[in-house]
């Protein structure tokens, strides 16, 4: 390796970097699946090849060596409870995450830039309900829809519409509504209320985002583009990237939820039961800390019988839209500044929407 080649590589790297900055302009997406020169980042790959694999091997060997200590640790009931809930959330999310990154990679690879802006209504206020309807059609858990929403933004969908999709997809798809009907036998009004409250919350958050939101926050974390010769290779690279990103933040969320479930005693919860505003807020907060899958939350809501139906509805409306696992995923995907604004906004809108619909229907 001589010095000349090194600086050439560095120059190519610089060029690649400024190319990305230009990408933020309107013509950006055109080069999203661009072919970049091989020298661009060979060095980083070389380095992580050496260090990364060694780190993985070292961690696994270290864990194997400390096996007895880890066994003793997991023998403690509290640690076991945490570990079981943690592993359960991760394992349960794996199929949904795989589906989510498949869809997001398909959008990133096969949806031509400029198609979504052409298809969606020009007026963002109209595009928002369209995003909600698109969400209804996709049966999936909340963890899968975050990478999908990010790809939609990349492909030029208005931020507000993509966010409405993000909120609607896990909350009101057919699988979730059927689960709700099963969990509340003889109470079809609960299914109607859930659908209405979630749809209302998703659309209202979208509209508020148009007025007050900051699309620049969404765009600041533009998805990286890939260098691949074929669409198939591009698809697999995007899928790989999105899986690692979403999976990593899922771990943070699952660990948080596991810890909270292990530490917070039930007596705190039951002391807040009953009717009224306190009960609604208590279950809305419980939904945030429990972080359970939207396809399962109806069963938990149904078992919380000492709470009013409106409070149960709030649990099912807030859960798929805001919880510790989702906040971690959103912060990782769109940035912390985004999550700090979006999560509280969604919490307030979803809780109010559930209270309103509950007061009207239940």
């Amino acid at each position, binding site marked *: 390796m001589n010095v000349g080649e090194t600086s050439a590589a560095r120059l190519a790297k610089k060029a690649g970097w400024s190319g990305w900055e230009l990408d933020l302009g309107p013509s950006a997406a055109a080069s999203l699946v661009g072919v970049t020169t091989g020298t661009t980042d060979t060095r980083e790959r*070389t380095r992580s090849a050496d260090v990364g694999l060694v780190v993985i091997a070292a961690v696994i060997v270290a864990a194997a060596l400390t096996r007895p200590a880890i066994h003793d640790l*997991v023998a403690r009931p509290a640690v076991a409870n945490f570990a*079981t*809930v943690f592993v359960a959330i991760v394992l349960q999310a794996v199929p949904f995450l795989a589906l989510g990154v498949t869809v997001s990679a398909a959008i990133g690879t096969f949806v031509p830039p400029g198609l979504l802006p052409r298809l969606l209504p020009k007026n963002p206020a109209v595009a928002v309900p369209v995003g909600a309807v698109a969400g209804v059609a996709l049966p999936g858990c909340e963890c899968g829809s975050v990478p999908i929403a990010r790809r939609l933004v990349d492909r030029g969908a208005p931020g507000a519409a993509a966010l409405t999709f993000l909120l609607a997809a896990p909350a009101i798809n057919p699988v979730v509504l059927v689960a709700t009907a099963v969990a509340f036998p003889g109470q079809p009004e609960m299914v109607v209320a859930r659908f209405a409250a979630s749809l209302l919350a998703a659309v209202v958050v979208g509209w508020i985002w148009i007025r007050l939101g900051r699309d620049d926050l969404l765009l600041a974390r533009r998805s*990286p583009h890939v260098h691949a010769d074929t669409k198939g290779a591009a698809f697999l690279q995007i899928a*790989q990237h999105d*899986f690692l990103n979403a999976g990593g*933040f899922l771990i943070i969320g699952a660990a948080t939820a596991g810890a909270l479930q*292990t530490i917070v005693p039930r007596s705190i919860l039951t002391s807040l039961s009953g009717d009224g505003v306190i009960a609604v807020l208590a279950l809305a907060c419980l939904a945030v800390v429990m972080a*359970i899958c939207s396809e399962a939350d109806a069963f938990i809501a149904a078992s919380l019988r000492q709470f009013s139906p409106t409070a149960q509805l709030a649990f099912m409306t807030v859960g798929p839209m805001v919880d510790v696992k989702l906040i971690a995923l959103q912060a990782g995907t769109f940035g912390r500044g985004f999550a700090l604004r979006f999560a509280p906004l969604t919490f307030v809108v979803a809780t109010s929407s559930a209270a309103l619909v509950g007061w009207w229907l239940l």
Partner: protein
Amino acid sequence: MVVAVTPSGGTLTALVGLLTLRLTIDGTFTRYVQSGMRPWLLLAGVALFALGLFGLVIALRSHDEGAGDEADGYDDEHEDEHEDEHGVGVGWLLLAPVVTLLVVAPPSLGSYGVDRSPPIRITAGKSDLPALDPSGGPVEMTLLEYTERAFDHDGESMRDATVELTGFVSADGSGTFDLARYQIACCAADAAAAVVHIVGVASTPPRDQWVTVTGAYSSGSSDVPELAATSLQEISAPKDPYE
């Protein structure tokens, strides 16, 4: 900003896929998720393993091409901006469940969480359940069904019948204990425990011991249904620990 598939990213993805497959095939997965998830876990496990292998192969191939670059002095000025795109970034955290599961598979939920999970509450007298047939020996049922029957007209449907329940010991006293079993809808994070108070046993098994109890419904005083035991057998944890 360019996505680079890294060997470590590919390895991590493949490991997650491989572990998912292992847990699903050896049946351990029922400790964590509902058993109906099996086909989806298998599918996702195969897909992630293949995706990871692909990433590993691609990355190693480009690694070989660029092997000559290693020794030069590279300036790190763009390190921060590039971290996410070039490295595995937050994906490293996937090592946590991978390592946990390689070393030890956490047990199914036990007595610790019974007080922390949402309680199963059945409203009394809502339905009329068909009566059990007492002639065919002990009737096996879930703790949830027992709870429902207990609250249906004070256990009317179980009159004269012998019932067989299987669960773990969640709280012990002298001559009595609480038998519990979790219901899960999706995964262990949404578990809710059904609890039956067992009375009339000679010796109380230790906490978290799985047992099969036969006995008759007894009209208890608390809001926890009660069973007067006639026999008690300690068993090993069932394949699917949840109802």
